[in-house]
């Protein structure tokens, strides 16, 4: 028979100061862990949307991002010869989108315009809406030939001057006035951080004769790797990546930083495990006589061991809950939104950090494990109490 749950629960509150301090230690570690997990999940979530293996981004050989690339129209036209290029069932048009990428510096709303960031401006044609399938318009789109743009919802949330009816200066020397006429979503993907406008007018506004890049969809069942090989081959001689590969490349540096922080949090978790071990040793040492008593009335060593492990896990979970709550409050206070540069794009990628049930679950599971590991030796010691000696001593 196992020891009753209430026995362990009440025991946590016998030594209030110790319990409180241990809970706070754990809370600090879990709060940080939850933030790191939230950041990682937000990044991965944004990239997962872009992780379409059927969409291929084509750029100039040697360029490391769409913004740094220039694709001459003649080279772009060669992409039409790809056998595996998907076609729109309705119009039989190839799903091939010429695109131009420039950036505009806009003030952040988060700090009331004290700092600004580069927001991507993408010149597109109708084809872009068929190739980037996640893009959904809310409101109307820009008219062909007009100085109008539509704005990704995340960009609109984060930067000033991107509401419908607002105007912004674009062009080679910032001298063309564009009007915001609509919003679009892209299922939370990186395109939501962009501004889209009509390709021909933007090309002329920026004095360009070349596209920046091309996006295309391949037929269902076609092999992306072989299409990429064909694009990079001598006949076309451009550089290609799946959308997934492109975006994970752009965030590689941030993921290194995140890994550094995660490693440091791991070290913190080890320190927390030591602290739990300390607390549990004290619990065991203070209750030698009680444990001996439990043994005499018939509880086995195994139950005592499991009992103390359970106590530690309870303690850890308590700390975990406090930590998650603190992290949630912190995010509430400083805001969920975060933006950062891609490593080669010079444009910003915005995303939301949220504590989803999965993240909270993962953080709590991790901390329960830390609690159990920390309590292992003390619990083992408790299970091996010499009954007679302990009873005599007390």
């Amino acid at each position, binding site marked *: 028979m196992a020891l009753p749950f209430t026995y362990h629960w009440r025991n946590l509150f016998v030594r209030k100061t110790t319990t409180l301090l241990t809970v706070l230690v754990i809370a600090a570690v879990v709060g940080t862990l939850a933030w790191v997990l939230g950041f990682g999940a937000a990044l991965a979530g944004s990239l997962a949307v872009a992780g379409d293996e059927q969409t291929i981004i084509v750029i100039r050989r040697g360029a490391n991002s769409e913004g740094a690339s220039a694709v001459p129209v003649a080279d772009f036209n060669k992409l039409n010869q790809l056998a595996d290029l998907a076609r729109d069932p309705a119009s039989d048009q190839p799903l091939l989108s010429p695109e131009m990428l420039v950036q505009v510096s806009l003030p952040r709303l988060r700090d009331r315009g004290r700092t600004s960031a580069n927001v991507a401006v993408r010149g597109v044609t109708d084809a872009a809406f068929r190739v980037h399938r996640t893009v959904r318009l809310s409101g109307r789109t820009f008219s062909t030939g007009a100085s109008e743009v539509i704005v990704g919802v995340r960009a609109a949330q984060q930067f000033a001057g991107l509401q419908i009816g607002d105007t912004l200066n674009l062009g080679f020397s910032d001298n063309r006035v564009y009007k915001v006429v609509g919003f679009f979503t892209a299922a939370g993907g990186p395109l939501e951080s962009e501004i889209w406008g009509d390709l021909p007018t933007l090309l002329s506004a920026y004095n360009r004769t070349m596209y920046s890049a091309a996006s295309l969809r391949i037929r269902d069942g076609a092999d992306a790797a072989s299409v990429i090989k064909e694009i990079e081959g001598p006949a076309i001689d451009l550089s290609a990546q799946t959308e997934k590969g492109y975006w994970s490349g752009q965030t590689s540096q941030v993921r290194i930083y995140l890994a550094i922080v995660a490693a440091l949090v791991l070290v913190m978790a080890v*320190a927390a495990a030591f602290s739990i071990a300390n607390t549990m040793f004290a619990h065991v040492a203070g209750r030698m006589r009680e444990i001996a008593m439990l043994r005499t009335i018939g509880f086995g060593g195994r139950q005592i061991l499991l009992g103390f492990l359970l106590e530690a896990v309870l303690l850890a979970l308590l700390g975990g809950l406090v930590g998650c709550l603190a992290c949630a409050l912190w995010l509430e206070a400083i805001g969920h939104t975060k933006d950062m540069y891609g490593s080669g794009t010079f444009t910003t990628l915005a995303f939301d950090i949220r504590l989803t049930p999965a993240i909270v679950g993962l953080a709590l599971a991790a901390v329960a494990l830390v609690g159990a590991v920390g309590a292992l030796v003390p619990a083992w010691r408790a299970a091996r109490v010499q009954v007679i000696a302990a009873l005599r001593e007390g």
Partner: protein
Amino acid sequence: MPLQLVYLGRNLTRNPLRTLLTAAAVALPITIVVLSSAVIDGISLYLDNSGKQLRLVVINRASIVALLPEGYRTKLEVLDAHRPVYVCGQRWLGGQLPNDPRPLSTLAADVDTFPAVFPDYLLRPGELEAWQTDRQALIVGRGTATQFGWQVGDRITINPSVPPYVPLQFHIVSTAPDAVDTYTLFCRRDYIAEELKRNHYMEDRVSLFFVKCRSASDLEYYRTGIDRSFANATDETMTQDEKTFINQFITQQFDLPRNLTILCAITVLVATLAAANTMSMNFRDRLGEYATLKSIGFGHGAVLATVQAESLAVCAAGGLCGALVPYIAFTYTRLREYHVPLIQQLQVRPVVCLLAVGVALAIGLLAGAWPAWLAARLKPVDAFRALE
């Protein structure tokens, strides 16, 4: 005095496991503090050097990737004859090796003014001559040179990540042994301009201008003056001092300094709480003892000192271990060559370690404060009664 030390030693060894676990729970956070501070320290050293160089960075107001006409250089040079400046136009190339994905940070610089604007380069004999006479000259930051195993005299090919997009041949003429920046590569802009022209790209535009000023007051004067004089021009400028300019890149990507500082604060909190936990457990276990001390005549101060000394000793031991391990690891082992983005090599300076030990002592002081105060205020009679 020695008696008190003996008492301290006995106190520490009374529950060796507890002492050890507490020291470890302090040591690990201190290791984090040392490593994070070393990263922050590296970044701020780099930034401070930029700040000291009296250089301004002039870019296109529209965005950092928009280019400026190279003719602006002459206009900048004659803006104020009483405040002479050196101006070096540079064009971003970025680039990679043909079969290596690691990004390079290559800039093509005006050959004539580069030595004046970047005086910590090309100081060794022969380097300046090589830079001036060899069209394909390339200066490689020594960190990058170590990373790729390059030496002066090597010939390398770089594929630029922007126009002209064609493979470019270079000769390494210097690995910048005296420069603080160990990362960036510099080549000659006249060479790149030729290739740009051959491939029909705008060769007469630059990514940015570095303006080297003579004094801090000149720097301040030009910081606002340049933008004013180019207001309403076709290409308006944005002028920032070099430190602000570089700091933008750091904060835009992940803001490592800020995030690491927050992390440090949390870890110190964890260590403090863990140590405080131990001290409060010790206090509880030794309630009778402290009461005895008080009843046989030891004063508040003596009891307070006993508790504080123990707390300080444990935390100091933890702090020393926590600071020494990363110091040794990053000074004497292969980890020294480990490549960290942005700062290249992680240098754990002794001053950072000392600071961390100081933090550990502060943790000890804080952790012992409450139990020490309780012990000092202990009324023997109440304590003995409570123990009954």
